[in-house]
């Protein structure tokens, strides 16, 4: 199948409306300077919005939930229950990159997480190029582009009156076939037009990042390793209130806690997102707590992202979305931590 199509801008809402018939569809909606995800049913009275940059919620929140039951004990069924397929529109590359990491954690390794796998298979991803960025965006500094390269089903690259649509998976191919009345073959001119827009956003973001001055991506792992005993961890941690916002909003953070609850005589095992900034994150029975200071916990977060994941997966555990910078009530800035480490 040909990989590039053209979709007229005024047909986008129709396409999304079609998708919403078979999927629970979530679309970005503008709120102040941000885009928040809402179910299609709540926004379909208006035109679909093309978000310039990533939404508030990370893509992981559609795949693992902040708190969910994973087992109802010995009577629990083996396979997770069937659910209506989910579709998310306007996913940006920082989130798509994080999927490589989330997939690695939950779908690979010694066992497959069946809940994640089911949701992942059921998830239709309609991604799109960034046409703008937030002041906190720094994807290019960690080796990510502001436009999708993989992990999408179909991707929209805007040109003047429509979109160049790229097919990224067989799921995307099926979708295009099904909705073929809306799509025509993209011309070379249209494709060239979308490429120019991509180059422009890269140039704009690079100009912005030149003022931020994050150390080069190929030095980050080494800086973390050499800065293990640095004072930076202590200095940067002075204001941390251990709220865990940086973890929960991070598309790459995946840590969770298994805990049991008893309700009306029924035992349930729940899985909740965990934060490595919490004081008890590494505590064991008997009281030992290897990460017993906030400085050690901050360092652990950075070692995991910039040392562990490059070693184990070949990519950073940070995709440059900048969400943690906005979420932190203590104004701890991941870019500043990386810069301070490089200076020492």
């Amino acid at each position, binding site marked *: 199948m040909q990989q590039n199509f053209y979709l007229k801008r005024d047909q986008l809402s129709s396409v999304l409306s079609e998708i919403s018939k078979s999927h629970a569809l979530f679309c970005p909606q503008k709120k102040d300077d941000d885009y928040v995800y809402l179910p299609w049913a709540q926004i379909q009275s208006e035109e679909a919005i093309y978000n310039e940059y990533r939404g508030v919620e990370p893509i992981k929140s559609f795949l693992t939930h902040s708190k969910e039951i*994973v*087992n109802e*004990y*010995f009577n*629990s*069924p*083996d*396979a*997770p229950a069937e659910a209506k397929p989910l579709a998310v529109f306007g996913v940006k590359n920082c989130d798509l990159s994080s999927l490589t990491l989330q997939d690695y*954690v*939950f779908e690979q*390794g*010694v*066992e*497959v*997480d*069946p809940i994640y*796998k*089911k949701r992942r298979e059921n998830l239709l991803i309609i991604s799109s190029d960034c046409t703008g960025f937030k002041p906190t965006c720094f994807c290019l500094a960690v080796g990510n582009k502001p436009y999708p390269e993989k992990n999408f089903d179909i991707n929209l690259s805007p040109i003047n009156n429509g979109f160049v649509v790229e097919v990224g998976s067989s799921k995307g191919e099926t979708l295009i076939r099904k909705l073929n009345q809306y799509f025509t073959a993209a011309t070379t001119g249209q494709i060239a037009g979308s490429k120019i827009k991509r180059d422009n956003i890269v140039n704009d973001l690079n100009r912005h990042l030149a003022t931020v001055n994050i150390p080069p991506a190929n030095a980050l792992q080494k800086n973390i390793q050499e800065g*293990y005993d640095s004072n930076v961890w202590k200095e940067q941690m002075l204001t941390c209130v251990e709220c865990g916002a940086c973890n929960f909003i991070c598309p790459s953070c*995946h*840590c*969770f*806690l*298994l*805990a*049991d*609850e*008893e309700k009306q005589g029924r*035992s349930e*095992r729940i*899985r909740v997102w*965990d934060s*490595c900034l919490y004081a008890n*994150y*590494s*505590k*064991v*029975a*008997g009281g*030992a707590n*290897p990460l017993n200071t906030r400085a050690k916990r901050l360092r*652990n977060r950075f070692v*995991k992202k910039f*040392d*562990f994941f490059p*070693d*184990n997966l070949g990519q950073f555990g940070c995709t440059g979305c900048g969400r943690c910078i906005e979420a932190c009530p203590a104004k701890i800035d991941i870019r500043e931590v990386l810069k301070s480490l490089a200076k020492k």
Partner: protein
Amino acid sequence: MKNIYKPIKAVIENITEETPNIKTFHLKPAEPIEFRTGQFVELTVPGIGEAPFTPSSDPFVKDKMEITIMNVGRVTTILHNMKPGDTVGIRGPYGKGYPVDDFLGKELVIVGGGVGLAPLRSLLLHLFNDMDKYKRVSLYYGSRSPKDMVYKRLLPQWEKRKNFSLTTTVDVGDGTWTGKVGLVTTILKDFKVEKNEAKAIVCGPPIMMKFTTFKLIDEGFKPENLYLSMEKNMSCGLGKCGHCRLGKYYICKDGPVFTFEQIKDLHDIWD
């Protein structure tokens, strides 16, 4: 698809009191559980939670499992109050366990501290299955005091094994103790083994592991021949929940047994 968070039901058949705060639970799982010695399981108290333990029983026995547990935390306190007939759950086994094939034809020095003898008992039962496969097995066991020694009833039987020797010590003796007194490191000397060939297997609390490792290296054992049982708060057991990271490893899936060679350059391994 398998629900990886669902435990297998198991009934407590019997409970042996080993010390004032250590009990061995004899479990009968609803279906046979195969494990390799040194692998660990997550033991569940439904509605309360789970905790990681390495079985202390013979890995060749699949329909029963013994787990020796010290009362140190939330889950273990509840376990210690349970009775024969009560139901628990078992998830696993997880991890890689002891690389027993590497031990074939070798002289083995096994060092246990306190309740750390529990996983080593499983290893010993594996070795006892055919002692002709190993040149010699020497067990060194240290505990805080005579009343804190586990498997006191079993030690005399073990001593009768061929190619096997047992040396015990306690940190502090009592009126009845006539054996050696001192930390386990004080009995790790005068080895009659080829030290650059012999394998040393160590399990115990972090502080004991640390000084035992230094002592064995001093004595001439090689880092690649030193097998250490590392511990952190393994929760999922599958390398997913993130809690038990040690450098570039997860203890649950890459361990829990590591050679000192694998981890000696990592930060904070004894914390």
